Structures are given as C-alpha cells and as structure tokens.
C-alpha cells in the first residue's frame, strides 16, 4: 500500500521539478544556518562554525543528487528527457518530419483499414457465450433430393440429432430467408431468419427488451408460434428503440405475428456477412416461405445445423459419436418410398454419407470464402506497401544521419555511450512512428468508409464497423512499434558508427555520407524496386481479371437500357392463381408505359448468384449411371427473350397456348442442345425431369435460344432449360425485366407507380439496370483490382522517391569526379548516361530479384484470376516498363544536375 503510494508520488515527481529543487535548497539552507548558529553559540568563530557545519553534514551537491533520484523515477526521467530531445530535434527539421509522418500514416493507415475488414469478416469471434464450443454440423454425399444453400440438412435430420446425441449440450438450426414486414400501412422487405426454439439459449444470447425464444414456448406446435424477435439494430432503426413495441402486432408475409422481444445489442447472428433483422420460430416455416413447407421432408435439405459441445468432448469425439447415428438414420431413410427407384450405386453412396464438423466460433458465412482470399491477398499487398514506406523512412533517416554526424561525434567524444545514442535515435523513430500511426488511425476510418462502397451485400454493411475498437487499436500500436524498429534500427546503427577523429577534424568528405551509408541506401532502394515490382504484377493481374470479367459477353444485349426489379407478392399472402394473374397484369401495365419497348419476367433473377438445377432425362438419349445430367432451370414469361435481346435460334417463344398446371413445353439454350442432340434438330424432341420415380420425358422442346450467362460471369454459360412461367405451380419471387428506349431515370418511378397501382402495400426491390446488376456481382474483383492498383501506384511512387534521394546523394558525392571528367572532355550526354546507368542498374537488380519472387507467389493468386495466367509475361513486362519509366524520371533530375556541373566550380567543391 505504502509502496504504491510512494511510486505514485515518484511518478508525479517527474513534473514541476524547479519548484521542488527550490524547496530542497531552502530546506538545506535553513539546516545549515541553524547548524552554524548552534556552533557559534558553543563558542566557535563564525568562520569556524561555517566550516564545521559544512564538513559535518556532507557534500551538498551529492545530497541534491540523491534527493532527486528519490524524488522521481530516474529511468523514466531519462526517457522523458530523450523524448523531449527527440521532439525538439524533429521540430528543427519540419520537412523531414512531415514527409516521414505522411509516409508512415499512409502505410499504417492502409494496413489498419484492411485489417479492420479482415478482422471483422474472418477473425472475430461471435459475441456469444463461450464461442469456442460452437461447431457447425453437416453431412456429405448425395441426398436424393433438393438442396438450398451450402452445408444444408433436412429438418427431420436435425430433430434426430437433437434428440439422440450425447456430445452436445445444445443442437440448434437456422434458415435465412427474406420476409415482408408491415406495420401500419408501410411494407418493407427485410432480412429474416427462421430459428429453432433453443437458438438463443444455445448461443447464450439474452433479450435487450422483452424475451427471446425458448424451446418450451416457441418450438412445440407446427405453424403455432406467431412470435417475432427483432434484432437490436432493427429495433433502433425501425422502431426508434421504443420499448412499447413489445406485445405489438405486425404482419409478417401478411400473417399477424407478435413482437415478443429484442435480442441483445451487438448480436447479429451466425453469419458475419448477413444480419437478419427479425427472427421467427422455425415451426412457422410454411407461412414464411409460401409454397414450400419442407419441415417434414427428409429429402429437402435447407437448414444449417450448429451445436455446442459438452465439456469433455472434442470435435473429433463428437464427430465419432454422431456418425453411427447418421448411418442408422440413413438406413431408415432408404426404406422410404421416395428413394425406392434409385440405382444401387447411388444408394451405396447415400448410405456412406459422413458427418462433417467445423469450428463455428466465428460463425459461418457462404460469402466468407470469396472475401477471405481477396482480403488476405490485399492484406499481404498493403503490408508490402508499408514495408516500402518503412524503407523510404529508413533511407531518409540515413540521409539525416549523414547530416548529424558532427553532432553524434561530439556527443560520443564527450562521453555518451553508443547504446545511449542508439536509444535516443530509436526514441526519435518511435516518436515519428507514433505520430504516423495516430494519423494513420484517423486515415483508416476514412479509408474503410471508402472500402464499404465496394461491398455488394447490404446485409454486410449492417455488421461491419469502421470505428476502431481495442483490437484495432492494439493492431495499430503493434504496427507502430514494429515499423519504428524496422526503419529505425539500421539507420541508428549506421549513425553511431562514425569515425570520431576524421569527423571531428571536419573532413567534409565524411559529411555527405560514407560509402557504407550509400551502400545501405542503395540496397534499400533495390528492395523497394523489387517489392514494387511484385505489387505492380499483382495489380496488373487483378486489373486484367476485372477487365476480362467485364468484357465477357453476358449474351444479353444493351444491358444499360435493361431495367430489372423484383417483387414477391407470395410473401403478401397471394394465392397461386392470383399470383399468376398479378404478374401478367404487371407486365401488361408496364408495356403501356411510354419509353418501354418490351417487358418480361423470370422465376430466378439472372446474374444474382442464384440458380436451380435439376437432373434431366432426354428422349432417345440413354444415360449411364454417373452421367452428368444436370441442367439449370428457369421459368419465363413470354416476351422475356425479346426483352433481354437474345435471338431464338429456332422454334418459337412461349405464348398464350402454354397454359395449365404442369409443364408441357420448354425452350433450351444452345449449350443444352449441343450436349444432348449434337447437330441434330432438338425441336419437337422430348425431355423430362428426374424429380420423382419413373421420370417420363413428356415436355416438348419448342425453341432453342442463344447462350447467355446464368448465375454470374465466373460460372460461365450453363446447360439451361426454360419452362413457361404460366405452367409453373411454384410462381414465387419473381424478377421483371424491362427494355427501355432511352435514359432509365424517369422510368424507375413510373415502374414503381405501375406496381403500386395494383398493390400499394407491395415492396418493389432491387430496382436497377442489368449493367449495375452485373457490376455488383464483380464487387470483390473490383475491390481487389482497384486497391491493388492503388497500392501498386503508391509503391511505385515511393520507390521513385527513394531512388531520387539516393541518386541525388550519389551525384553530390561524385561532383568532383564529374567535374574532373568534364574538364578532361567528357560530354554532357556521357555524364547524363553515367548517372542514369547507375539508376537503371538498381532498377535491373530490383526487377531481377522481383521476378523469381513473383513467380513463387503467383500460384497463390490463380484462384482469384479469370482469363489470365498467374505467370502472364505481358503483365510482368508492363510492370517492368512502368518501373523503368518511374526510375528514369527519378534518375533524370539528378543526372541533369550532374551533367550541367561547371567543371571549375566542381573542382573547387569541398
């Protein structure tokens, strides 16, 4: 206790020293005087009395020293002195300081920004109880039915797991789906999640207001739990954080439900890229996804299962304990009638399905995979940029060291140790780095807001934060000290290695920087060139990838004047027939608008990453077991192809003849026709879908259409079968396509109005041109290309600046030699070339080092690329040319200065 008190006193002793020095002086003075007076009283002469008092009380200066050491903390005091000295020194050279701080701020800021995204998308643990106990559970192998999303399981499978496994304290499940929410007379489409009743309990997430779901209250009755839990974010943004909403009724998909609570602030769910705004008990599934129930079906896999491991179980032991259960379930499933016609070989694979698990401490996201590689690549690139910036600052410090040689020599001569000086210089670096880091932190927030513009998913924006938290601060601080060491250590070492006698004698030659420091700076520049080369090659590959993706012909014509929007009236309680009538009516009303040439609609929107694929049977085309029979399916209205600008190669479009409640006719694309019919005419041939036992080819091909893209550019052209929307018995969620003659601006509002004339409460969403839609699918690629190009440019600029500095130094050092050469008759051109040659030599060395590195790194990039080889020679050549141009630019200025040297002046130089 008293020790802490003493420490705090000593800490405060670092300040206000003058007053305390003065006080001590006064105290000792009064001590001395009293002593003298006593001595005089005991009979000494004043002279003697003073002498005696001084001797008997010991040395005054020593006493002050000992007192001062006790008053504060000597170690800290020295640090403070060094710090003050460093600040003073930096203030004396403001240009150097500003340049160094800017370089560091850019480097550290960019790193902090990218790390903030990386951390939130990839690294951060879910804000739930003991996230390390969470695992995701799924099964491999064929399901003999439909799948929605990745790692999906059937609901009965989930129930079996939940009731019969020992390894987990909880097993819970979730399903992500958009929902239509209306309260008052406002409707909007929100991100929703259907969850098992134990979802919140299992995660250990409580309510902010009201209650969350419980297995007892919300998971007992099929369609019997009209309860809603709002996310905290949605509660704040939509309901103004009003606690009165608890108990209020809202319509979800036109079904009356009660808001029972708001989940805890900060909790956004299992998927960091999506943040559901409302959650509904999974028993409400049929009402939340009209037209598809699936709760009781073992052949439909759609939910994602998670579990919380019991203490004492590892993932491996849990997996081992679940596998026999799965096999048992599968053996029971084979006896179901729906799988009786499946060939033996497929059944064997079905029975051999395996349980898979993965830690889910940071949740699971479909999108993570595509972002993770991009973010890791960007993180590496931005790390290189920081390294280059460090090399630049190091180079600047070495140049400064040359100018400070005299000061350093004097300090060494009067007794400073090299260790003390290195400490002093490192503190200077640390000060630069801390200021740079703090500036960088502010820069990073602005940069992150810029980065958000590249993210295509709106749900993602809800969970991502630009503001730094303690993790980001720690990362930033770590970078600050790492960089300080990186750029500070070598120059500091270089600085204190001065040759005392020659420097003090004032040998000017030493002042311009010894051979050692020039060599060091040259190697730094070479490293910079090599790193810049790497970054430029990477940037080139990504830019080319983006260009290739953009130039890929989607098949659709003039997509700039092609507007798409989506409606989902099924989520507003429409019946099957009313849905079909509604779509038709919308199409007709839109067609009558001025500026609209044609309109059509489709079941699944194109270029949205979504798809449906079924196995086909083809008349006259026997399949062997294991043949690829996959075809990608969509349902279309008449007029769709005309609107999309695609030619029918043969046959006809859908029209009024194609009605009914089951599919009779189909249009196939060229890829499908070529795969199954070769060069024979597919018209009037029959196909069917292997949806149930004994599939019969009873759908007649009436048309063939040119190829076009389906999910996105990377996926390319698929074998496709198109069916008439009018014959569909699942006409849910639909995308409209509208061909306009001119600018689309005014048409947007008109389209919205036309839909709302028919149903004022129906949300119209995702309205944009198809061009924008295509652009959005390229969000990751654009992010990578733009940022890597920016990093490459920055790196090249920094390398050029570094090169310029070194060449300027070289020219100063060789002024005399150059003068001599010119006096002896060297031409200007020869001198120019002499200097440039040296610069180009550094460039050549840097690129020579960069090429093998680029080659080694290229393999990690290939999954990110499209239409360009990772070892593309042209890209490397362009990178080298850009660097050469920058080098020439950086070398030419000093070279010209050298070539215009006046020989007389130069020989007098020094």
């Amino acid at each position, binding site marked *: 206790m*008293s*020790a802490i*008190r*003493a420490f705090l*006193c*000593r800490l405060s002793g670092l300040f206000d020293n003058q007053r305390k020095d003065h*006080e*001590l002086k*006064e*105290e*000792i003075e*009064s*001590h001395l*005087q*009293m*002593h003298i*007076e*006593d001595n005089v009283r005991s009979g000494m002469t004043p002279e003697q009395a003073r002498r005696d008092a001084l001797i*008997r*009380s*010991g*040395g*005054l200066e*020593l*006493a002050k*020293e*000992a*007192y001062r*050491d*006790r*008053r504060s903390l000597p170690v800290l005091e020295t640090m403070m002195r060094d710090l003050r000295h460093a600040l003073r020194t930096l203030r004396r050279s403001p240009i150097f300081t500003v340049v160094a701080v800017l370089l560091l701020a850019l480097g550290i800021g960019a790193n902090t920004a990218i790390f903030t995204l990386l951390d939130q998308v990839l690294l951060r643990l879910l804000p739930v109880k003991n996230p390390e106990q969470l695992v995701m559970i799924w099964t491999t192998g064929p399901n003999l039915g439909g799948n929605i999303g990745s790692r999906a399981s059937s609901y009965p499978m989930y129930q079996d797991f939940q009731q019969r496994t020992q390894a987990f304290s909880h097993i819970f499940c979730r399903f992500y789906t958009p929902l239509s929410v209306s309260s008052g007379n406002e409707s909007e489409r929100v991100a929703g999640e259907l969850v098992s009743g134990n979802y919140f309990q299992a995660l250990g997430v409580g309510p902010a207001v009201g209650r969350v779901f419980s297995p007892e209250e919300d998971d007992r009755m099929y369609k019997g739990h009209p309860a809603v839990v709002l996310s905290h974010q949605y509660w704040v943004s939509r309901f103004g954080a009003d606690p009165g909403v608890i108990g209020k009724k809202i319509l979800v998909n036109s079904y009356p439900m009660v808001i029972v609570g708001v989940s805890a602030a900060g909790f956004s769910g299992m998927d960091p890229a999506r943040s559901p705004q409302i959650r509904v008990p999974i028993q409400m599934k049929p009402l939340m996804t009209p037209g598809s129930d699936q709760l009781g079906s073992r052949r439909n896999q759609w939910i994602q299962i998670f579990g919380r491991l019991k203490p004492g179980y590892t993932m491996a032991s849990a997996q081992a304990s679940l596998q026999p259960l799965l096999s048992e379930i599968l053996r029971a499933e084979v006896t179901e009638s729906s799988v009786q016609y499946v060939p033996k070989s497929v059944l064997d694979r079905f029975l051999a399905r395996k349980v898979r698990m993965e830690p889910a401490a940071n949740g699971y996201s479909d999108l993570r995979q595509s972002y993770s590689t991009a973010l890791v690549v960007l993180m590496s690139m931005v790390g290189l940029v920081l390294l280059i910036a460090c090399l630049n600052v190091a180079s600047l410090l070495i140049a400064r060291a040359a100018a400070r040689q005299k000061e350093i020599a004097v300090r060494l001569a009067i007794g400073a140790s090299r260790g003390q000086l290195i400490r002093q210089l490192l503190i200077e670096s640390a000060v630069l780095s801390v200021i740079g880091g703090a500036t960088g932190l502010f820069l990073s927030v602005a940069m992150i807001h810029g980065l958000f513009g590249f993210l295509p998913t709106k749900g993602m924006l809800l969970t991502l934060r630009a503001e730094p938290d303690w993790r980001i601060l720690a990362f930033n601080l770590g970078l600050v000290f790492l960089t300080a060491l990186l750029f500070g250590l070598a120059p500091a070492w270089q600085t204190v290695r001065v040759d005392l006698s020659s420097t003090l004698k004032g040998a000017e030659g030493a002042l311009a920087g010894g051979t050692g420091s020039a060599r060091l700076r040259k190697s730094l520049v070479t490293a910079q060139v090599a790193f810049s080369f790497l970054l430029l090659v990477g940037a080139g590959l990504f830019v080319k990838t983006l260009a290739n993706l953009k130039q890929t012909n989607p098949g659709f014509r003039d997509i700039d004047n092609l507007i798409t929007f989506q409606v989902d009236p099924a989520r507003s309680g429409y019946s099957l027939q009313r849905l079909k009538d509604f779509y038709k009516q919308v199409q007709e009303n839109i067609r009558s608008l001025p500026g609209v040439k044609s309109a059509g609609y489709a079941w699944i929107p194109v270029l949205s990453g979504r798809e449906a694929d079924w196995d086909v049977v083809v008349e006259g085309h026997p399949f062997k077991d294991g043949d690829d029979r996959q075809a990608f399916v969509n349902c279309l209205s008449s007029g769709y192809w005309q609107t999309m600008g695609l030619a029918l190669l043969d046959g006809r479009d859908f029209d009024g003849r194609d009605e009914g409640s089951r599919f009779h006719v189909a249009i196939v694309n060229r890829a499908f026709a070529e795969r199954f019919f070769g060069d024979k005419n597919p018209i009037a041939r029959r196909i069917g879908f292997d949806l149930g036992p004994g599939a019969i080819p009873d759908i007649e091909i009436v048309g063939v259409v040119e190829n076009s893209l389906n999910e996105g550019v990377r996926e390319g052209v698929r074998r496709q079968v198109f069916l008439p929307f009018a014959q569909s018995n699942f006409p849910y969620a639909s995308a409209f396509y509208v061909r306009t003659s001119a600018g689309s601006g005014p048409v947007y509002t008109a389209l919205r109005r036309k839909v709302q004339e028919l149903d004022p409460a129906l949300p119209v969403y995702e309205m944009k041109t198809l061009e924008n839609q295509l652009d959005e699918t390229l969000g990751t690629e654009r992010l990578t290309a733009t940022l890597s190009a920016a990093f490459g440019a920055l790196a090249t600029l920094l390398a050029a600046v570094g090169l310029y500095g070194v060449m300027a130094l070289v020219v100063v050092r060789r002024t005399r030699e150059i003068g001599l050469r010119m006096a002896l008759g060297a031409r200007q051109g020869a001198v120019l070339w002499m200097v440039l040659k040296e610069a180009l030599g550094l460039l050549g060395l840097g690129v020579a080092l960069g090429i093998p590195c680029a080659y080694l790194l290229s393999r990690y990039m290939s999954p990110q690329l499209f239409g360009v080889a990772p070892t593309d020679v042209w890209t490397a050549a362009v990178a080298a040319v850009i660097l050469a141009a920058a080098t020439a630019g950086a070398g030419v200025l000093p070279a010209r200065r050298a070539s215009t040297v006046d020989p007389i002046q130069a020989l007098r130089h020094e």
Partner: protein
Amino acid sequence: MTDKMDVWQGTLALMVLKTLETMGPLHGYGIARRIEQTSGNQLTVLYGTLYPTLLKLEQEGYVSAKWGISDNNRRAKYYSLTRAGKKQLESEARRWEQKTAIIGRFLSPSEEA
C-alpha cells in the same frame, strides 16, 4: 571524527520515526542533531542520507511535512509522525528487537553449555 559511523540506510528511517515520536514535530536539522546526540555522538547524519530518507517516509505516508518557523525565527520544514507512521514504527521496532535478540543469542557466550 574518523571513528564516527555513518548511519546506515534502513535503520535511519526507524531512528527518524522514533525521534519524531518522542520529540513531536521537528525540522531536519533538529532530527539530525537529536539522532547524533542519542547515539552519544557516535553517528553522523549527512544531508545526503537524511533528506532522501525523509522524502521516502513522506512518499510512503509515514510522516507529513509543513513549513513553519523555528525557535530562532527561521523558516524551516517541520516533519511530524502520521498515524500510519506510528503503526510502522511499532512494527519496525518489534522486528528490530527480534533481529537483535537473535543476533545477540549467536554472539553472546552460550549459557547452557
């Protein structure tokens, strides 16, 4: 003068506390004088040991200091014992007695033998 002992660190703190307990508030010079007298002039108290010790005691909260006027009208800093100081004195004195008793038993001729 040469045979006088310099006060060794650590024990000085105890002497200062004891002095302040017996004498009441006192300035640095008075404390030094008193310690030297009590030791029968065998000890010398130097500035360089006295004032850092006083500062240490003050930082630890065992003494408090206040500027005042001495008997012969001189401004001086007066030190006085705090409550924590009193406790510290008691425990330190006890420890010191134990220590000396143990050492004493080693050094005195053994009576049991």
